[in-house]
C-alpha cells in the first residue's frame, strides 16, 4: 500500500471551551478519494480548514505532502487546491476571468493560462458560459465554477468542502463524475459532504459526528460493520417461522420483515445462498425469490451512529457506576 499523502494524528480543535474536532486520526493514500461524511456542524469544514492551513489546531499532528499545513512552503501550496464551502469568487468578473485570476495566483503566465482556463472550464462544462458574470450564474454553475478554479493549476491534492451542497441530484451526480475522473487521473481528493448517499462514490469514507471520528473504512466494509455481514432478502410462498434458520451454521441473524419475508445476515452471501434455500425446503418452505439486499448508506450511517450512541451509553453507565462506587 502506498504511503499516505495526508495524515492526521490525534488532531483536536477547540473554539473557546467547545471541541469542534476531537482527537481525529486518519490517512489518505495518493490517488484516492476520502469522503468525510457527517451532519451539518459535525466538524467537517474545521477538519478541511486545518488540513489546508487556513485554521490552526489545538493539538495533534497533521502532514500534507510531508509538510505541516501551518508551515506550507510555496512549492507545496502550488500542489494543493481548496474549494471552500461558500461561493467566494468575484461576482463582477466573468467565469473566465475568475478562473484566470486564480490561475494567476498560482503564478501561471497569460499565455499558458489561456489553455488551462479552457481545460478547467471544459471539465465542469462551463466553457460556453465563460463570458457570463459570476453573479449571473445559477447556484449549481457557481459551484462548478469554484471547482474549475480549484482545478486550473492541476493540483496533486484537492480539498473540496461540500461541492454538492444545495445542488439538485442530477448535477450532484455530474460533479461526482468529475471528481471520480480527477481521481482516475491520479489526483488525491478529500471531499466533505452531508449527503450520506454520496459515500458510495468514495474509495474510503470517514464518518464524523460531533467532531469525533465514528468510523473510517471502505464503503462496503462499513456496510459489513453495521450489519455484521451480507444481507439476503428471502421471499417465500407461504408464511415462514424465522426459527427455522436460527441454528443454521453461517447465519448471523434472521429478521422477519413480513409474514412471507425474511432478512438474513450471513457471513458470505455467495456461499450461503444455496444452503439457505436447502434449509428452507427441508423445513417445507418453498422460496419464491432471493436476492442480496444492498442497505442504503443512510441505513449504514444511522446504524453506525446508533452503535456509537449505544457504546457511549454503555461507557457512560460504567462511568456513573464507577462514580457511585469510588472504591471499586
Amino acid at each position, binding site marked *: 500500500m502506498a504511503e499516505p499523502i495526508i495524515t492526521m494524528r490525534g488532531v483536536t480543535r477547540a473554539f473557546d471551551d467547545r471541541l469542534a474536532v476531537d482527537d481525529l486520526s486518519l490517512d489518505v493514500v495518493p490517488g484516492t478519494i476520502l469522503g468525510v461524511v457527517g451532519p451539518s456542524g459535525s466538524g467537517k469544514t474545521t477538519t478541511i*480548514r486545518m488540513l*489546508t*492551513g*487556513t*485554521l*490552526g489546531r489545538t493539538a495533534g499532528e497533521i502532514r500534507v505532502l510531508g509538510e505541516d499545513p*501551518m508551515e506550507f512552503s*510555496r*512549492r507545496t*501550496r*502550488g500542489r*494543493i*487546491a*481548496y474549494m*471552500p464551502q*461558500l461561493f*467566494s469568487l*468575484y461576482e*463582477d*468578473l466573468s467565469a473566465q*476571468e475568475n478562473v*484566470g*485570476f*486564480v490561475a*494567476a*495566483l*498560482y*503564478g*501561471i*503566465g*497569460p499565455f499558458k493560462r489561456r489553455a488551462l482556463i479552457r481545460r478547467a472550464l471544459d471539465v465542469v462544462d462551463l466553457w460556453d458560459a465563460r463570458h457570463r*458574470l459570476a453573479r449571473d450564474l445559477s447556484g449549481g454553475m457557481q459551484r462548478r465554477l469554484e471547482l474549475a478554479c480549484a482545478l486550473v493549476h492541476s493540483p496533486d491534492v484537492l480539498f473540496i468542502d461540500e461541492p454538492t451542497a444545495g445542488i439538485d441530484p442530477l448535477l450532484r451526480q455530474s460533479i461526482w463524475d468529475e471528481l471520480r475522473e480527477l481521481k482516475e487521473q491520479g489526483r488525491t481528493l478529500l471531499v466533505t459532504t452531508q449527503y450520506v448517499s454520496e459515500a458510495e462514490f468514495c474509495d474510503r469514507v470517514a464518518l464524523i459526528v460531533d467532531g469525533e471520528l465514528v468510523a473510517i473504512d471502505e464503503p462496503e466494509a462499513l456496510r459489513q460493520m453495521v450489519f455484521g455481514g451480507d444481507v439476503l432478502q428471502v421471499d417465500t410462498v407461504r408464511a415462514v417461522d424465522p426459527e427455522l434458520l436460527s441454528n443454521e451454521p453461517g447465519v448471523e441473524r434472521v429478521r422477519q420483515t413480513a409474514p412471507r419475508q425474511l432478512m438474513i445476515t450471513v457471513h458470505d452471501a455467495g456461499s450461503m445462498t444455496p444452503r439457505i434455500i436447502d434449509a428452507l425446503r427441508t423445513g417445507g418452505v418453498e422460496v419464491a425469490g432471493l436476492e442480496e439486499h444492498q442497505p442504503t448508506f443512510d441505513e449504514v450511517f444511522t446504524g453506525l451512529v446508533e452503535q456509537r450512541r449505544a457504546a457511549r451509553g454503555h461507557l457512560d453507565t460504567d462511568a456513573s457506576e464507577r462514580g457511585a462506587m469510588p472504591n471499586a
Partner: protein
Amino acid sequence: MRSIAQSIIRVASFTGKELRELMRRPGVLLSLIVGPFLIMFIFGLGYSGARDPFVTEIVIPRGNELPRDPEYYANLAPGRLDVREVGENSEPAEERLRNGDIDLLIVAPENASTELRAGRQTTIRVAWNQIDPVYDQLAGLATSILVSSLNAEIIEQAAAEGISFAEGEIEGEVTNVPPEIIARPTTAATENVAPTAPEVLSFFGPAVFALVIQHLAITLTALSMVRERLSGQMDRFRVAPVSSMELLVGKYIAYAVLSLAVTGLVGVLLVGVLGVPLLGGWLVFAAIVLLLTFASLGVGLLISLIADSERQAVQLSMLILLASVFFSGFVLPVSDFAAWTQYISYTLPVTHGIQTLQEHMLRGGVTSIWMLWTLLAIGVVLYIGSLLRLRRVLRTAD
C-alpha cells in the same frame, strides 16, 4: 528569476482584478469622476463668500450731537452693517434684539463730546444675539470698526469745536490742521501681492479635490479588503502561494492607477472648465496626488484590517471624512487650533494634501516641502503596518 516573474504575475492579477471589478460598476466609476467635479461646480456657483450685513439699530440719546442719518453709520463699516433705524430709546431696541428682529444694537453715550472735553471716557454699548461662532467673531470685528469710526467722529467734533472756540478767542487762524486729519491722521492703501486673486472657488477647489482623493482611496480600499475577508477569499489566498506583499502591492497599484486617472480627468475639468489656476506644473501636481493617494490607501487598508463588516468600514471611513472636514484646514485654518489638536490635523493625509495643492496651484510652488515628506512617511508607516497585519491575517484565521 522564475519566482520574480511569478510574483509579477500575482501582483498584476490583483491589480487587474481590482480594476476590472471597478469597470464593471459604471455607476461607481461615474460618481468617481463626475461626483467630485459636480460638487466643486455647484460649490463654485452657489457660494459667494459674502455674508449678509448685520441688521443694526443705533440708539443715540436725546441731547447727543452725533448724526442721526442711518446711511451715515452704514458707511462707517461698508458692507458689514445694515442700519435700519437710529432711535432715541434703547428699551424697545433691546426687545427687538432679544426677539432676533435685529442682529446688532449700538447705544451711544448721552454726552460724548462734553465728557471728552471734560477729560472723561464714555462707553458705547454694543450688543448682539448670535450662536454662530463665526458670526460672533464677525460681529465683534464690525463693532470694533464701528466704534473706531465713532471715536474718530467724536474726536473730530470735539476738535472742530475746540478750533472754533480758539478762533473766536484770538480772532485768527490757530491751526492749519483740519479736524478730520486730527481724528484720522492715517489712511490705508492696500495691496494683495499673492500671485492669484483670492477667489472662493480657486481657494476651495484644491481643498475639495484633496478631500475627494483621500475619501475615494480610503473608501475603496477599506471596502475592497473587507469584502475579501467576508467573502472567504482570504482562505483562497492563504492556500495559494500568494504573499501579503504581492496582495498589497497589487491593490496599491490598482488604486494608484485609478486615482491618477480620476485625478487627470477631474484636474482637467477643474482647471479647464472651472478656471481654477494651476501656476505649478502638472508633473508636481501628479506627484502630490500620488503621495496623497499612497498615504490615504494606507488609512483605508488599516480600516479594512480592523473593521469586522462593510458597515463598520463605511462608518470608520465617514469618521475620517468628518475629522478631515474639521481638522484638515478645509473649513477652519489649522493654526486656529490648540497645539495638541494640530497633531491630529497633521496625522490626516488630507491636511498636507490641501496645503500643498493650494500652494502648488495658487502660488506656483510648494513651500511646505516637509508636508510632502510627511505624506510619504504616513504612507510608508501605514503600508508597513498593514503589511505586518495582513501577514498575520494570511498566516492563519486563528
